[in-house]
């Protein structure tokens, strides 16, 4: 059973109990009041009749010897019978006059309710004329019962009408109040089926709208996470695709040339060519696997934090790269202040060597590569061919190459900058690239430690 239905039923039961209980006690009270009022009237009437009879009886006795009190009693009896009042007179246990057909006993000086022939009477019995007679007075009060029944009827009808009205109103109010809950429920059902695009209405300021608000913000968070996860999965899939491609290319060469050597009647010249390709492509495979392992290692391990002088590191890098730069006709310049950062000297040296190596490769003959550092910041700039914005976006992706054929010809694996980024990340360093086509590239590595 739904919450609102439970609330409805319990509220309704409670209300009906209270309402009907209240009405019933009100009816009882009203009835009691009218009984008391009637009894008072009846007592007064009985008193009046008794006093009046006593006066007439004294008058009668003083009038003469043969005056009959019985006649007086009959006169009284007949007179009051028409008014719904019945009388009886006794003397020493003997009935002198009685309007009653049945005999019954009534206590003296008390007020008694009795039913005769289905009609209600109030009986009052008392001694009369200084104890000479016993006087029984009865008045028909069936009006009281009638009043009682009509009272019950009116009250019951009212209670029924109010209850019905309340039942209907309560039903719609509770149903309406539970609408936001229903909406939440249908939203969760949609989510259960995988539709994360739902939002819940946030109307009003009650608990439901608060709940809807937190529900929506939760959904928003989940959506963000899902998008991030999907992007991540896509990236990984792309990496796998790229890797398959990158591995297949050298594999094709190795397999092909080996097969060629095995099957063809080769000239000495072609034998050497084939063997050279097999060696160079194997080296390329080895390089790819090495870098992938390095990257995985760096990702999986925290780097050792020792103080490293950036300036010295850059000068060493320049020295190591000098022979290659000279061969390419590229000038290497360093302008390094002492700047101590925390990190792993070997990894950082790998990072700067890779960056500087790329810079040298980007330069034509006569180009210049500058390595500078100051205040936890290393800058490597060249005046080489530069990159487009589109290229800049992708350069740190594994296997991305700005110039595929040239990179391959130089034996590049397309993983250098991906590794650099990983090293920078593991040092909490920020690596940023800015470049203009034809003017050169500037790479800034900023350390935060």
């Amino acid at each position, binding site marked *: 059973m739904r919450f609102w239905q439970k609330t409805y039923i319990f509220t309704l039961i409670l209300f009906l109990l209270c309402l009907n209980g209240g009405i019933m006690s009100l009816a009882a009270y009203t009835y009691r009041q009218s009984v008391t009022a009637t009894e008072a009237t009846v007592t007064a009437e009985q008193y009046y009749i008794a006093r009046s009879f006593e006066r007439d009886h004294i008058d009668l006795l003083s009038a003469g010897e043969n005056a009959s009190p019985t006649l007086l009693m009959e006169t009284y009896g007949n007179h009051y019978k028409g008014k719904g009042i019945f009388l009886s007179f006794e003397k020493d246990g003997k009935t002198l006059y009685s309007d009653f057909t049945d005999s019954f006993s009534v206590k003296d000086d008390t007020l008694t309710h009795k039913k005769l022939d289905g009609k209600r009477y109030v009986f009052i019995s008392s001694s009369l004329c200084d104890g000479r007679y016993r006087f029984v007075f009865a008045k028909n009060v069936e009006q009281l019962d009638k009043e009682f029944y009509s009272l019950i009827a009116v009250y019951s009808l009212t209670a029924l009408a109010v209850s019905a009205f309340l039942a209907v109103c309560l039903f719609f109010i509770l149903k309406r109040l539970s609408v936001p809950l229903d909406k939440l429920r249908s939203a969760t059902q949609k989510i259960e089926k995988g539709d994360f695009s739902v939002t819940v209405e946030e109307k009003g300021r009650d608990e439901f709208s608060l709940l809807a608000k937190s529900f929506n913000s939760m959904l928003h968070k989940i959506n963000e996470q899902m998008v991030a996860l999907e992007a991540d999965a896509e990236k990984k899939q792309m990496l796998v*695709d790229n890797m*398959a*491609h990158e591995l*297949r*290319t050298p*594999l*094709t*060469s190795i*397999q*092909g*040339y080996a*097969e*060629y050597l*095995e*099957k*063809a*009647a080769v000239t000495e010249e*072609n034998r050497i*060519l*084939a063997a050279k*390709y097999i060696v*160079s*492509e194997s080296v390329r495979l080895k390089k790819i696997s090495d870098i992938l392992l390095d990257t995985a290692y760096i990702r999986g391990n925290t780097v050792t934090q020792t103080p490293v002088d950036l300036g010295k590191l850059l000068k060493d890098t320049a020295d190591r790269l000098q022979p290659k730069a000279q061969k390419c006709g590229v000038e290497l310049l360093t302008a390094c202040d002492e700047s101590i950062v925390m990190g792993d000297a070997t990894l950082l040296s790998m990072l700067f060597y890779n960056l500087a190596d790329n810079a040298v490769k980007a330069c034509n003959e006569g180009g210049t590569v500058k390595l500078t550092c100051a205040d936890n910041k290393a800058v490597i700039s060249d005046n080489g061919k530069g990159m487009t914005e589109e290229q800049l976006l992708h350069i740190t992706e594994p296997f991305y190459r700005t*110039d*595929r*054929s040239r990179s*391959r*010809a130089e034996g590049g694996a397309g993983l250098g900058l991906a590794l650099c980024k990983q090293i920078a990340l593991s040092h909490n360093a920020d690596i940023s690239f800015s470049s203009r086509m034809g003017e050169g590239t500037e790479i800034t590595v900023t350390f935060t430690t």
Partner: protein
Amino acid sequence: MAKILIVEDEKSINNLIKLNLELVGHTCLQAFDGNTALELTANGRFDLAILDVMLPGASGFDIIGALKDIPAIFVTAKGGLEDRLRGLRAGADDYIVKPFEILELVARVDAVLRRTKAVSDSFEFDDIRVDFDCKRVYKSGEEIMLKPKEFDLLEALIRNRNLALTREKLLNIVWDFAYEGDSRTVDVHIQKLRKKLSLEDRLKTVYKTGYRLEV
């Protein structure tokens, strides 16, 4: 034989394809990027183009559009069904996935060329002429009678000439299924071919490998 355009940016693979196709008698032209390939197709006439899909400059799909009625074979590292279908829909006649075997490459090139009738279906060397359509062999103008399997063996050797074929491979091609362990059958037929066509100098036994027809 056929004139074939090879478009592949990976120099080693481009050379590999060229070396092998030249072995079986084709003439090859090489292009290392898409734009060069487009220029070559605009100026020259080829019997077949072998295309890498991912190329600097114009892609393999761009080039196939410019080829018009020249048959094309895609060579790519992506072997997924989706990529395969995309290549075939773009108009490629066949599809080779890297890494590939030389014999597979030669067989596919041969199949496409035969299908498009770009090569005459006969082969001549020394004083021997082989007519593949009529399944006849002539030596010095005189027909030499060969048994069907002998002819099939000769055809396999000619189509993969200058390449060593293992006994297993020959069994597979000629007898159409693997004769487990019965490679003597191949040796017997080879001996007969050598004798009937006097091929002792041409049909060589390659040490630990198989047989090679050197032309």
